[in-house]
């Protein structure tokens, strides 16, 4: 933490960056911090409560953040993959940001209460983490912690869903998605949903009805997760943001697993590796095609 605070202070004082986007204490646990004054860098923290993927604040649509000037951004290895994604898709230029990567041993599912990291309290997204030592950075801080405990909950839920018949799965998703109020918090919180005009907002023609009816909600969530195929880093901001507590992470994980299985690709920290839906192999599997 001290290293992070000192580095940030230095970066701001030397005018290398105009703002450090990191984490600070808030009234309800940690929250994003936007430090522009070198004297305020003491506010920066980094611990297992730092769940939020801050890469979303690099989205160029966030004018009030972009106006602050060149940012340094604090990322965990998983978040660094979102930064790589934004660079890969030309939303951010590598030279226009400073990446401060933090070595991380897992984050809590419920970040409001600091507690020990166990297989029940750890976030499901930490399962199988292979980026505790991030590769995308300008500065890297922290000791390499041990591997996080594995929270099996999501793998179990997906397995349970796969065991069901299509009709049962249909009922499950119908039930869950009926609660969606189409606030689009999932989209706004997602680092990779940066489209200036979302497909769902298009009125002429209207592909996806804006009303939160079960039918339109299904179309919305299906399209959003499809548009994320190969781009989603499984940060679970969508699920955390959802005011209706819809298990969007199940969709995100399922599609990420499908992409891995079919194209041997997982969102990575190297912006030069192309995303799978924009490329192809002539020998891609086509057993599902008649």
């Amino acid at each position, binding site marked *: 933490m001290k290293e992070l605070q000192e580095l940030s202070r230095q970066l701001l004082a030397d005018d290398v960056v105009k703002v450090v986007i990191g984490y600070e204490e808030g009234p309800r646990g940690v929250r994003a911090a936007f430090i522009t004054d070198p004297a305020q860098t003491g506010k920066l923290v980094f611990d297992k409560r730092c769940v939020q993927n801050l890469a979303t604040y690099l989205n160029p649509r966030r004018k009030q953040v972009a106006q602050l000037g060149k940012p340094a951004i604090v990322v965990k290895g998983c978040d660094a993959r979102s930064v790589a994604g934004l660079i890969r898709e030309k939303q951010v230029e590598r030279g226009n940001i400073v990446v401060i990567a933090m070595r991380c041993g897992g984050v809590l599912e419920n970040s409001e209460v600091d507690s020990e990291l166990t297989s029940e309290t750890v976030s499901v997204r930490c399962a199988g983490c292979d980026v505790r030592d991030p590769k995308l950075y300008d500065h890297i801080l922290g000791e390499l912690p041990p591997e996080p405990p594995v929270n099996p909950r999501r793998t179990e839920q997906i397995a349970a*869903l*796969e065991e069901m018949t*299509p*009709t*049962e*799965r*249909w*009922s*499950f*998703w*119908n039930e869950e998605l*009926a609660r969606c109020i189409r606030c689009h918090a999932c989209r706004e919180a997602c680092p990779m949903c940066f489209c200036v005009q979302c*497909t769902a907002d298009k009125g002429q023609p209207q*592909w*996806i009805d804006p*009303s*939160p*009816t*079960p*039918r339109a909600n*299904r*179309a919305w969530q*299906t*399209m959003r*997760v*499809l548009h994320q*195929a190969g781009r989603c880093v499984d940060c679970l901001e969508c699920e955390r943001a959802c005011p209706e507590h819809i298990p969007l992470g199940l*969709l995100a994980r*399922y*599609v990420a697993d*499908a*992409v891995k299985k*079919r*194209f041997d690709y997982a969102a990575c920290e190297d912006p030069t590796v192309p995303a*799978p*839906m*924009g490329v*192809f*192999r*002539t020998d*891609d*599997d*086509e057993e*599902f*095609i*008649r």
Partner: protein
Amino acid sequence: MSDDVKPGTDTTWTPKIVAFVCNWCTYTGADLAGTSRLKMDPNVRVIRLTCSSRVNPLFIIKAFERGADGVIVSGCHTGDCHYSTGNYYARRRFAILHDLLDFMGVENNRVTFSWVSASEGNKWQEVVNQTTSRVKELGPSCVPLNQKGGE
């Protein structure tokens, strides 16, 4: 036709199937099937597009929303795309859509992806008839239903 309909469903129900086909291969193949007077189930409405790659997954979802019980997506065989690589990209897209639809509860047998070339009138007949019989077995699609809230 009515013999294949699931018990309890409307015995006058016939499936509505929408086919998104590419202009260069499948459309021509379908045309050949027609001119060859091949017997095909009459439930398919064909929508002609420039390439299988033009098929946005939204089209398939929208087709289901508007009452399609089944969807066919068909294009040129890989390597034969009129635009060289369109169907390679499409193949990747369809693969994920195929998996996701199944996960969301839309049975795989409702959606048929195929490569049908301009000379494969017989294959088109097969695709149409097989898809129709699979969809008949599954019964009407639930996708257009708006059970909770709304109305």
